């Protein structure tokens, strides 16, 4: 969105993803949410005296996976550091993170924009770190609660290059990154619940300027929509400042989604001095190439590769392939439905894709539902498409059956059988209906035989009417032509 054509927007994003490991990063506590406050803690994650962290290998493997998925360099040697600051929900008074030697560097991912397909966005680094607890201020006056359940949840911080030029870029980057971590099954990607969090660094400069402008950091962005809105607001704010002769101040700003504005949280001068130094309780992390290769060999198919396969092997359009791989659930749904169609002996991925992207998504969007909430299962949608492909029902009937499935659920085969919607393919009964129609429409028969062959459509319609749409239109055509000979 070129807000002012004289200015260029520069955006870099820092994304924190909570990893779905079984246990926390440095202790054996379960890594899960929603439990009673302070019930998922032990002396290690609660920062008691004398206890020590022990590295969770599952987390390291997830970091390697994510690094490989974005074409990053996996570092054979990486080092944990302590980031020191006092806060009640940080029990040790420091966060174990990676500082100058992160596990992944020099990655990239590609975003698709209407006017700029396959735009490359660099990923500077991915590092491992530990999440803090939560301070709760509601429901108590003059004090705060501290819930340490989240302390020790493993996080990957994924830092992009300042390669994005608009809020649309940022939105597409986040969607692609979220799809990747979900395809990898390392993170559930839920921004509202905070398992996928984003801070945005935003600056503006005159077009053609070499130096970046002064940047601000935007926080509290709990949806992709809010990220995009906050960036647009910030770009406007910065341009207004510059245009009115003021300067942009380097600061951290908090987004208020209710008011659609951001406000200053702290300036550069108030920034913490985190006093990073290497974590003496954890030796440097060293990785064998063979271990990295093993993980690489087991990487699941990722969105870009899957979209290419959908195009190359299934003949889908680039657009459909893009839509069907934008979300892991979407691609899983499509592939499951398509498998049912193939099993029925009538391979037609295009038809399946069409039903998913047009009929199903159309209806889901209308009802404000996501694919995970679809009342029509992938298996049932596949069965429905198969019924069309095998000629059991017509496309028109199929739409009725789909509406029924969506509203009341159910297996399309049963619905077709119970409601007597099955296409009539028995040539005897079709011939009988055709003869009745021909007998009652002598004028039209005359006209046809006289050369006005387009009248055939009218006669087909009459037969379909008489069979209440169940007759196979192709057969009706064929029999009519024979009889009219």
């Amino acid at each position, binding site marked *: 969105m070129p807000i002012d054509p004289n200015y260029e927007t520069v955006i870099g994003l820092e994304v924190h993803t909570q990893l779905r490991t079984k246990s926390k990063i440095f202790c054996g506590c379960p890594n899960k949410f929603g439990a009673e406050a302070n019930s998922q803690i032990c002396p290690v994650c609660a920062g008691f005296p004398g206890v020590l962290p022990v590295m969770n290998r599952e987390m390291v493997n997830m970091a390697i996976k994510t690094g490989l998925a974005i074409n990053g360099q996996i570092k054979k040697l990486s080092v944990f550091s302590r980031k*020191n600051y006092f806060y009640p929900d940080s029990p040790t008074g420091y966060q174990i993170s990676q500082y100058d030697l992160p596990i992944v560097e020099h990655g990239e991912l590609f975003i698709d924009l209407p006017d700029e397909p396959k735009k490359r966005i660099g990923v500077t680094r991915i590092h491992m770190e530990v999440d803090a607890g939560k301070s709760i201020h509601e429901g108590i006056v003059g004090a705060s609660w501290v819930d340490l359940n989240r302390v020790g949840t493993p996080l990957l911080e994924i830092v992009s290059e300042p390669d994005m030029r608009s809020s649309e870029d940022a939105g597409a980057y986040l969607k692609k990154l979220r799809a990747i971590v979900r395809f990898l099954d390392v993170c559930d990607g839920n921004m509202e619940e905070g398992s996928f969090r984003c801070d945005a660094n935003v600056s503006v400069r005159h077009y053609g300027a070499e130096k970046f402008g002064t940047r601000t950091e935007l926080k509290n962005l709990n949806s992709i929509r809010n990220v995009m809105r906050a960036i647009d607001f910030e770009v406007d704010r910065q341009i207004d400042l510059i245009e009115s002769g003021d300067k942009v101040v380097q600061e951290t700003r908090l987004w208020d989604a209710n008011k659609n504005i951001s406000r200053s949280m702290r300036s550069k001068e108030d920034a913490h001095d985190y006093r990073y130094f290497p974590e003496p309780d954890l030796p440097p992390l060293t990785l064998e190439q063979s271990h990295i290769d093993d993980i690489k060999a087991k990487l699941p198919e990722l969105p870009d590769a899957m979209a290419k396969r959908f195009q190359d092997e299934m003949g889908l359009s680039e657009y459909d392939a893009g839509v069907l791989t934008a979300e892991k659930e979407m691609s899983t749904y499509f592939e499951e439905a398509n498998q049912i169609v193939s099993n029925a002996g009538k391979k037609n991925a295009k038809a399946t894709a069409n039903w998913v992207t047009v009929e199903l998504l159309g209806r889901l969007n209308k009802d404000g539902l996501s694919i995970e909430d679809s009342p029509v299962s992938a298996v049932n949608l596949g069965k429905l498409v198969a019924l069309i492909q095998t000629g059991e029902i017509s496309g028109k009937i199929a739409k009725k059956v789909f509406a029924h499935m969506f509203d009341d659920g159910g297996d399309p085969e049963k619905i077709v059988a119970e409601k007597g919607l099955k296409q009539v393919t028995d040539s005897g009964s079709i011939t009988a209906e055709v003869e009745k129609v021909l007998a009652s429409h002598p004028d039209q028969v005359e006209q046809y035989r006289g050369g006005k062959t387009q009248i055939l459509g009218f006669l087909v319609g009459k037969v379909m009417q008489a069979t209440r749409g169940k007759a196979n239109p192709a057969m009706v055509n064929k029999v009519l032509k024979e009889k009219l000979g």
Partner: protein
Amino acid sequence: MFSDPANLTLANMSELLKKREISSEDLTQAFLERIEGLNPDINAYITIDRAGAITAAKEADKRLDAKQGEPLTGIPIGVKDLFCTKGILTTCASKILNNFIPPYESTVTSRLKGAGAVILGKTNMDEFAMGSSNETSHFGVVKNPWDKSRIPGGSSGGSAAAVSAGMGSATIGTDTGGSIRQPAALTGITGLKPTYGRVSRFGMIAFASSLDQAGPMTKTAEDAAILLQAMAGHDPKDATSIDAPVPDYMANLGDGLQGRKIGIPEEYFASGLSPDVARVIEDAKKQLTELGAELVPVSLPTTKHAIPTYYILAPAEASSNLARYDGIRFGYRCENPEDIRDLFFRTRAEGFGNEVKRRIMLGTYVLSSGYYDAYYLKAQKVRRLIADDFKAAFSKVDLLLAPTTPDTAFKLGEKTNDPVQMYLSDIFTINVNLAGLPAISIPCGFDKDNLPIGMQLIGRPLDESGILSAAHAYQQATQWHTRSPIL
């Protein structure tokens, strides 16, 4: 039937217990009585666990009766009050932990208990192990049993005084910059600091994580070998613990000194050494030669950088390690805090003593942005050079011999207002920690005031057997370690 346990070594007691000539309960009872009698004066213990000790002793007697005893079964010992002991007050000699009862056990105490040892109580120390005289303890100074107007050394001053005064068969200390060896030397006992990572740090309250190491404080090298055997070994709960097999220290104890090369680092004898210490170490050299060792002059040129390097790295780590004492989850909390800042500020201002605060400030300063490269990073580089010096020396010799301290125990209060003078009392011990090496201090004579003097034997990484057998050979030929203070 059993009057004075103070004259026996741990090995003697083990033998008598095994033969059932004494019971662990009687032995424990005798030690407890001795502790209760002497502690009001010496102040070696912060907590005495009479009930727990008697229960453990009875349990040990059952196993001994059933001939299921191990060398440590029924042996009463004291442990420094920075090892977390489940259900037993663990203070680190600080007001900030004056009410802290850990819900977990340190690996060291867990292994010792598992081997049958009876824990008599928790010994006094410098607050958070920061000090060289045991004068920074929130629970009062410890007196040197040889001269109660003098310091016992630190930071494991209570552990040292307890062994010296017979208030336990042995004790466990920790050594970050000399905290086992220096007090061992000043109280006339044997103190072993193992290789960094040989003994688990889990449950040991951290001062400087990359330097801290637990070790035994005993009457003899043999006793140290018995205790180390139970303490050493890899611990999955400590990522810095070394995953290497633990040798049989007792089996190697009699290896002797014949043909072994002992390096004499010239920098340790250059200056600042008191005439008494210099004389006693000269005698020890002769003794070692008589036992078959070959003395070889070596050089450790980076020795002079050890103190400044240590006083950057150790406080840096400490400043971060001690951040968790914030009054939120455990320990001391100030009264009526106005807000979270006030809670942090006053809890820490009221809970920590001056030396701890000094080191937190030092450490915070050297890690601060703009100073990190000049201090912390440079100190890390020097630390590597110090380790390289030792490596070069050990390519020529098997062991190194050095005085443990430049002088004997000083007077209580003598150096409390001069931190630099205080820090210099660790001048001969600190670089061993920086290099992560094992070293033992053993008694080797007395000064003109009848105060004990110690010497250090420093070994290659994981060569605890080498220094223990050398120390044992020396102790077999000398009587210094058998002398006790008159109380």
